[in-house]
Each structure stands twice: as C-alpha cells, then as structure tokens.
C-alpha cells in the first residue's frame, strides 16, 4: 500500500516532468531545394507545439533564428551533400537543439565574418546567432548540431554584438 509520502513524491515527479518536459521530433528529407522551406516549416511547427503544449515562452527572435539555422543547414545539404538527410530537433523550452545529419564525409567550414564578401555567409550567420555549434563525423556522413536560446537575454553574449 502506498504511503502518503510516496504519493507526494510521485506528484512532484509528475509536476517536474511537465515543467522540464523535453520534446523531440525528426524528419527525413531527400533535400531537393523545395525541402528547404519544408524543413523551416517543420521547426516552426515544433516550436508552436512546444508553446501550446508546454507553455514554452519563445521570443520572436528565437523563432526567426531557428528557421534561419534550419534553412542554412538544409541549403548546405542541397549544395554540398545532396541525398538523404535527417533533421532532429529537441528542446526543453530553454535551449533548442537542431541536428542535421547528411551523407557527405567532408566537415563544413564556416567563413569568418566579412560583410564585403559576397558569398559564404551561411555558416557565418549560424555561428553568429548560436549558443553552440558542433561538427561530428559518423560511420557514414556527418552531423552538425546547433543550439540556440529560446528566450532573449541581454547578459548572455548571444550573437549580434559578438558577430560584429
């Protein structure tokens, strides 16, 4: 027979689960150029679901940036590693983790900030807006993981200042 305390513990645990709920979602693409917009829609829906289901507070800036990161990673698959790719998104409501696996073996290299350069601003933008950026070789292909903050914060050195 359960004790009162055990009940209270279970309730607290349940509450914590709701509060610290982690959501995950995955999508596979062949990554033709039309898929780039679909991938943005996918992360937009994911964040909207987090907002309605878990009451995540997500800044407008974060929603924009999440789509930008997905768009850049998807565009690069199109351009440099055409073929199947896997997009994973995960969040606890504070940080959004965006992972793109593709079949290409070569690791991408972000260009340093330089507004006078016409091209190669894709990963520069990603680096400028992210909290972390990770490249990982896999048995086949590679993974790029980008984390972004879902709430704006003036004391955390995100992006815009540091990019300049």
């Amino acid at each position, binding site marked *: 027979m359960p004790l009162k305390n055990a009940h209270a513990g279970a309730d607290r645990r349940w509450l914590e689960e709701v509060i610290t709920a982690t959501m995950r*979602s995955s999508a596979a693409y062949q990554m033709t150029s*039309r898929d780039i*917009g*679909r991938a943005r829609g*996918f992360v937009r829906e994911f964040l909207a679901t987090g907002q309605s289901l878990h009451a995540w507070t997500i800044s407008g800036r974060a929603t924009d940036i999440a789509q*930008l990161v997905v768009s850049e990673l998807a565009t690069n698959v*199109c351009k440099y590693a055409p073929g199947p790719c896997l997009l994973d998104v995960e969040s606890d409501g504070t940080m959004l983790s965006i992972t793109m696996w593709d079949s290409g073996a070569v690791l991408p290299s972000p260009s340093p*900030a330089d507004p006078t350069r016409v091209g190669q601003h894709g990963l520069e*933008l990603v680096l400028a807006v992210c909290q972390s950026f990770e490249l990982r070789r896999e048995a086949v292909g590679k993974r790029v993981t980008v984390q972004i903050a879902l709430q704006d914060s003036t004391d955390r050195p995100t992006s815009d200042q540091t*990019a300049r």
Partner: protein
Amino acid sequence: MPLAPDEISRQGILTTMSTPERRHSSVPLAVIAPRGEFDLDSLPPLQAQIDTALADHTGVILDASGITFADSMFLRLLLTTHQRTDLRIAAPSETIERLLAVVGADAFLRIYPTVDQAQNT
C-alpha cells in the same frame, strides 16, 4: 509526434513594378515588392525580376515589407545586386534587419524606412 511540413505560409512572389514619379529624385528607380519566404529555392524568380527591372532602370528599390523570411542566399543576391547597381532596400522587417545586421551588411547597404523615402533621397 510527427509534425506535418507547413506548406501554407510559403507564398508566391507578387510584385508591383513601376517607375516612381520623379519628385526630388533624379533617377527613375524600379520598385519591386516580393512577398513570402526567400531561400535557394525561391531566388531564381527574384533574380529574374531584378534583371528585368535593371534592363530599363538605373537602379531598383526593393520593398522588403512583404518578405517574411530570408537566409544567406537572399543576402548573397542583395550583395551582388548592390555591387552592380543602385539598390535601395525599403521597409525591412525585423527579420531582414537582423539578417543584415548580423553580418554587418547594414553598414553599407542603402536601407530606408519606407519606399517613399527610398525614392526621394
């Protein structure tokens, strides 16, 4: 929970192309007003539109108020267009302003709050 890709917000490119009346402005600039999201996929029509506009205008005003999303491929088009002609960007949303600011392109691109101000400068 599998989330269906959201196709709805991807809009076609609706544009108005017009030669603004010359008031204070001395050069006739084309105005284009693309709408929707701009990436690798949606750039060729925008590029074509700019090319057409520049065939008989000395520059182009990009009314950016209807652009809901843009990435580095769009930025690239802005930068190449800026290099070849008088490009004026009018009424950018916060999203577009951020895109330009993050890479520092807002320091030299011509950006105006409204199409009117872009015309009359």
